[in-house]
């Protein structure tokens, strides 16, 4: 009996979701199918179909290099964001009421300004006559300006700052869900701060770490604007590569194939994170 009731409720709810499903179908699934079809065109005119574009990409060292450096960039940005974001989330947890508000405001502030504005701010900071070089030069620490803009570490730094809220917010949620008595219990049982962190706080915040890493990673590797503006012309990542092929070279089938390969690569990473996330949730909620 219960199953029938549940079923009738579910069908009713599905009807309510129909407009959204329709929009999803028209504006997301259809373009994706078109993209997939396009990627199988052997030439831009669409006279022949085959795996030509995929073979071209996978046989090309340059293309594989772009894919590799993009995925690796994501790893570096995610690691840096986690390293810098965890203390912020931890501090938020410990702070008194007003401190919590201030930290939350600082975390959310970047989301209130456009990515373009934030990225240009980094250009100002990292440039040859930028804030960092001016400061170091003024202090007499360096003779010639350091090259910070258009470097790999510049991109990683800027992306880490731009994506920080995506890491900190899930971490704050995860940490606030941990019963404060657990840390007290640990300390009364003889564990110092570091041991309590390692054995209790860190494992129990794993779902937040994984969610934050997933969001940061996905956002970092697809961050077209920041990658292009801070990386400049010499550094090529997948979003810009796809853009060049489609817009500049008008090679739509190849652009489509790269997109599909990029999508597949991202999906692999995302599913690894998802599996980890499920494991950690099972682990903490077991």
């Amino acid at each position: 009996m219960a199953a029938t009731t549940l079923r009738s409720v579910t069908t009713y709810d599905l009807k309510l979701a129909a407009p959204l499903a329709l929009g999803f179908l028209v504006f997301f699934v259809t373009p994706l199918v078109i993209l997939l079809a396009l990627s199988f065109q052997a030439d831009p005119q669409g006279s022949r179909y085959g795996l030509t574009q995929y073979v071209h990409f996978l046989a090309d060292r340059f293309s594989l290099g772009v894919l590799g450096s993009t995925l690796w960039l994501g790893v570096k940005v995610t690691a840096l964001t986690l390293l810098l974001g965890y203390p912020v989330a931890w501090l938020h947890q410990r702070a008194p009421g007003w401190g919590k508000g201030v930290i939350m405001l600082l975390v959310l502030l970047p989301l209130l300004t456009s990515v373009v504005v934030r990225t240009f701010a980094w250009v100002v900071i990292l440039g040859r006559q930028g804030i960092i070089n001016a400061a170091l030069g003024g202090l007499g620490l360096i003779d010639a300006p350091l090259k910070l803009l258009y470097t790999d570490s510049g991109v990683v730094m800027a992306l880490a700052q731009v994506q920080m809220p995506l890491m900190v917010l899930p971490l704050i949620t995860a940490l606030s869900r941990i019963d404060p008595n657990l840390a007290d219990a640990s300390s009364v049982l003889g564990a110092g701060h570091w041991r309590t962190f390692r054995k209790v706080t860190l494992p129990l915040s794993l779902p937040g770490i994984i969610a934050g890493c997933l969001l940061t990673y996905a956002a970092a590797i697809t961050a077209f604007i920041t990658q292009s503006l801070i990386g400049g012309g010499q550094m090529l990542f997948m979003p810009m590569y796809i853009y060049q092929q489609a817009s500049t070279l008008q090679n739509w089938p190849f652009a489509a194939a790269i997109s599909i390969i990029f999508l597949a690569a991202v999906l692999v990473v995302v599913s690894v994170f998802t599996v980890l996330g499920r494991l950690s949730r099972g682990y903490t909620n077991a």
Partner: protein
Amino acid sequence: MTSASPTTAAAAPAGPSTGPSQGRTLLLDGITQRYGASVAVNDVTLDIRGGELVALLGPSGCGKTTLLRIIAGFLAQTKGHVIVGGETMDGLPPNRRSVGIVFQNYALFPHMTVAENVAYGLDARGVDRATQRREAQRMLDLVKLGHLGDRTPRQMSGGQQQRVALARALAVNPSILLLDEPFAALDKNLRLDMQIEVKRIQRLSGITTILVTHDQEEALSMADRVAVLSQGRLEQFSPPTDVYDAPESLFVNSFVGSANRLGGVLEAADRSGGRVRLDVGGVIETRAPRGDVGPGDRVTVCLRPEHLRVDPGAAAGDGAGEALNGVVEMGLPLGATIVHEIRVGDGSAVKVAESRFERASVLAPGTPVRLAPLAPRLASVFAAA
């Protein structure tokens, strides 16, 4: 028997099953805790004997939890000293105090098995794996959960979780065991079972134990001595029967058990008792007045509902003082007892609880009755509030 430092305690786990030992004494010496302008604990001194179970009893906000956190080392007291077995604990962090706590919500580590939870403290003390396993098993056997070590806390019932929390706290052989409202989350039947169980284990291990509770029945039934706290002050520190039968303050009289409060004027008083003329009429023989009151002063008389008797019809007084006339307002048959609310002279209500053995039926509202104490000198007298 009990070792001086946590490290030696773990290395040679004397453990609770070695039979009653001389638990360590706990002296709270003039503890005061201030938060800005407010005083959470005000000059509380408690001298607790080794192996004693002491209940800190009081309403929420009375300072009992603050006191517990001070003993555990989570809070540094503003003034006073915490002395365990002659050694001062002031300034020591919680992980170096050798204190065990059972939290109200048990605070078991959800990502560890029950056995890992119990072994946690031993692990933190660097005890080797084999000993950890053996000790955890022994503690789980003590709380009768030896067969469930591989489960996770969430797979266990509330009562089982509490046993695990107790086993975890005792596994490190602490000097002092602190129980923070440990039975509040359990349903009534299970609560009684667990109270008996905890008392059994506490007796067996001989560990000095502090039970924080707002439940007077729990405090009276479990504790060797009860410390009643109100607004940060220690109101009374006595065995349970004294707290109930000889309350030292109006607060204790009203908070522990229930009390009818009646105003009056003290007519005579000496060491053995007093006599009060009540505002509602009648004179009552009382216990010796508490506090600074003498004949002629205004006082408050506290009469427990079970110390009164209702007799139908108005009449003159008897040996226990002049009787009090009133009218039945309401009668409630509560099972083992029957409670009547009686409206007396000036309109104030007095509750009377009588056993079913004494009274077969409920009196109808409006019945004129007279009230009399069951015996002289049952009522307590305090300076008028």
